[in-house]
């Protein structure tokens, strides 16, 4: 046993052996000290585990690594009231919906929101998708963590509960939400199960979807943003390209009868799958377009995909109300891409907004303010929302920005982290999102 220990030590940490020996001596001394420390309550330790009284380790962290500054993910404009709603999914800054005026004097200073929706009663989770209806005075939010669709008043402020909440069979871990006002339908994308679902805007708590698109023919592959062109009767969905075969109906929360456990959360029951061939593959990023009335395992009517499109981790998507162009926040290369309304295949964007002057770093949300002829872009990494002329292109500076952190603050590198690991060779910690 000791020989194996030595081999492991030699292979894994030979460079730090002298340090390790010194550390052991030091730790022994520290251990003796800490046993006398008021921060350690020593309970009796019986010989048998069944009668054990645990040692209570009650002490504060020696260090805390986190970013206290909110970020902007989704953006939704209330043009009638001149307000911009932005989703902040940074939990270390308190997940929130922040509301700003659409028109303000340009400033480089941190700008306080007009109001914020935040707190335990809001049930925002890791809020990442927003839509709104000025007509009905409603704001809709989805979360990348929970399986709910929450509705707030457009005037909501503070720690208020949703006025309505969809919390039935709706799959968990949603990304985007869009209100098709013409047809009174809400559309939601679900990353984990490659699905787009439509619900009545007036849904009640446990409503079934009106219809959904899901299955191997759909080419949905890690879907993010969703937009409905109600004139053309088409649905646009951005896809990162991570693909696996999904069953139609997968991800719906139906207790032990749920088709599989995928997307349900670790502690939610569902059927186990038999061991079988894996189906996963990497597809190029894409925008898949469907008939608005498509249902089930429907093929897209066209797909925008290929190297000429420049699509690279596309996220938020909307439409220019004047030109009809499709506008995409292209996170992977810090750009906003504009495609012709009828674009298909490996087609070039008609214009691109990109460059250091734009200040865009990790753009994820886009929206067009038709009243003021402006394009809004949520730029996650550098804590800003940038406002451009609607027709902006090239390396153009924004007209103004809203920032939640000083310009020289570190980039927002951590979202909801999935794990933490320690690399002894480099004395570093690795934090995947």
């Amino acid at each position, binding site marked *: 046993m000791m020989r194996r*220990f030595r081999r*492991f030590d030699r*292979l894994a*940490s030979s460079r730090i052996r002298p*340090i390790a020996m010194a550390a052991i001596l030091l*730790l022994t001394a520290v251990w003796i000290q*800490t046993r006398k420390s008021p921060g*350690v309550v020593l309970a009796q330790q019986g010989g048998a*585990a069944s009668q*054990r*009284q*645990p040692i*209570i*380790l*009650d*002490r504060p962290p*020696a*260090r*805390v*690594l*986190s970013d*206290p500054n909110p970020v902007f993910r989704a953006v939704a404009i209330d043009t009638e009231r001149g307000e911009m709603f932005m989703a902040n*999914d940074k*939990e*270390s800054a308190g997940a929130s919906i922040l509301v700003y005026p659409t028109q303000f004097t340009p400033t480089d200073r941190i700008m306080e929101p007009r109001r914020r929706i935040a707190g335990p009663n809001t049930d925002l989770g890791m809020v990442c998708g927003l839509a709104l209806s000025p007509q009905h005075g409603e704001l809709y939010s989805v979360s*990348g963590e929970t399986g709910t669709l929450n509705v707030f008043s457009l005037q909501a402020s503070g720690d208020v509960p949703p006025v309505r909440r969809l919390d039935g069979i709706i799959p968990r*871990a949603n990304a985007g939400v869009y209100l098709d006002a013409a047809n009174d339908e809400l559309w939601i994308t679900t*990353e*984990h199960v490659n699905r787009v679902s439509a619900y009545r805007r007036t849904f009640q708590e446990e409503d079934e979807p009106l219809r959904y698109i899901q299955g191997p023919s759909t080419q949905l592959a890690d879907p993010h943003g969703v937009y409905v062109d109600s004139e053309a009767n088409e649905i646009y969905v951005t896809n990162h*390209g*991570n693909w*696996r075969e999904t069953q139609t109906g997968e991800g719906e929360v139906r207790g032990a009868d749920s088709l599989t*456990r995928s997307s349900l959360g*670790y*502690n939610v029951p569902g059927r*186990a799958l038999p*061991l*079988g*061939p*894996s189906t*996963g593959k990497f597809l190029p*990023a894409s925008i898949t377009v469907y008939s608005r009335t498509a249902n089930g395992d429907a093929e897209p009517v066209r797909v925008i995909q290929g190297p000429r499109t420049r699509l*690279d*981790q596309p996220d938020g998507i909307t439409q220019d109300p004047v030109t009809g162009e499709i506008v995409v926040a292209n996170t*992977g290369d810090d750009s906003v891409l504009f495609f012709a309304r009828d674009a298909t295949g490996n087609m070039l964007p008609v214009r691109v907004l990109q460059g250091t002057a734009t200040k865009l770093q990790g753009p994820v949300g886009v929206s067009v303010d038709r009243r003021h002829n402006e394009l809004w872009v949520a730029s996650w990494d550098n804590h800003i929302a940038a406002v451009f002329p609607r027709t902006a292109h090239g390396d153009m500076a924004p007209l103004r920005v809203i920032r939640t952190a000083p310009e020289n*603050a*570190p980039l927002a590198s*951590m979202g909801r*982290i*999935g*794990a933490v*690991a*320690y*690399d*002894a*060779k480099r004395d570093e*910690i*690795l934090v*995947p*999102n």
Partner: protein
Amino acid sequence: MSQPRISVYASSADGNAVPTRVIQGSRTRQARTSHYLAIDPIRDEFAVPNPFAQAILFFRGDADGNEAPLRTLQGPKTLLSQPDNVAVDPLHGEIFVAQFTTDSVLVFPNDAAGDVPPTRILHGPNTKLDGPIRVEVDPVNDLMVVTTRDAVVFFNRTDEGDAAPKWVLSGPKTGLGFSRITRDVKLYPEGRKIIAAARIRGRLPGPPGVDSFGDGHFIGVWQYGDTGDVEPWAVLRATPHSQLMGRRLAFNKEAGDLFVGGDGIVQVYHLPEIFERTE
């Protein structure tokens, strides 16, 4: 929603620190849901699962920016089904994947690339693998530990087929089982300790006191051989003093530091008493 990236910090980083490097971009093939990362100190690599594309990605230890993985394990023969975690056994050259969707643990060579079948599969009613979400390996003491729906179960490292666990930690005194939202479990071979993190509503492990009930996180430490419904040997509970907020775990045994990942936060606890060597 999180961004698909791995941020790397100096272990001494504090506050709103700047990462030493960030691995991100479409060439990296990461999904936005990377729930685990395992380091192979011998090959100087690390492995990350991509559940949406059913793949395990292997990167250089020094990977930076929009860098492609060294190799990718993916394909029909792998039987990978939404892999959410990966563990590395550098000593025996293997990786382990616990599969929540298929009640199984798959084992591959750690240099596997492409469409490679598992070398061993742990699966069957005797295994008590009910919704396994995490696996870790102690290559020194030949131990494998798996977090399941209601328990933390232990096997011999090389167990396969329908093998029964050798120890099972479960029950109200333990606070474990992911119906109590257990998340990560780590093994400390030199001290023969088991470190598990969970969130619990109700009675927290440990003696009665002001903080013995609640709705919060705790980290329990058990000793090898503990089985059944037993209190931990030591416990760090979420209290106003500890401010414990997470359930993702890593440690630096030499410094006596336990790293705890929460929602957009990493807390570092100096707990040298956990990392005593017993042999």
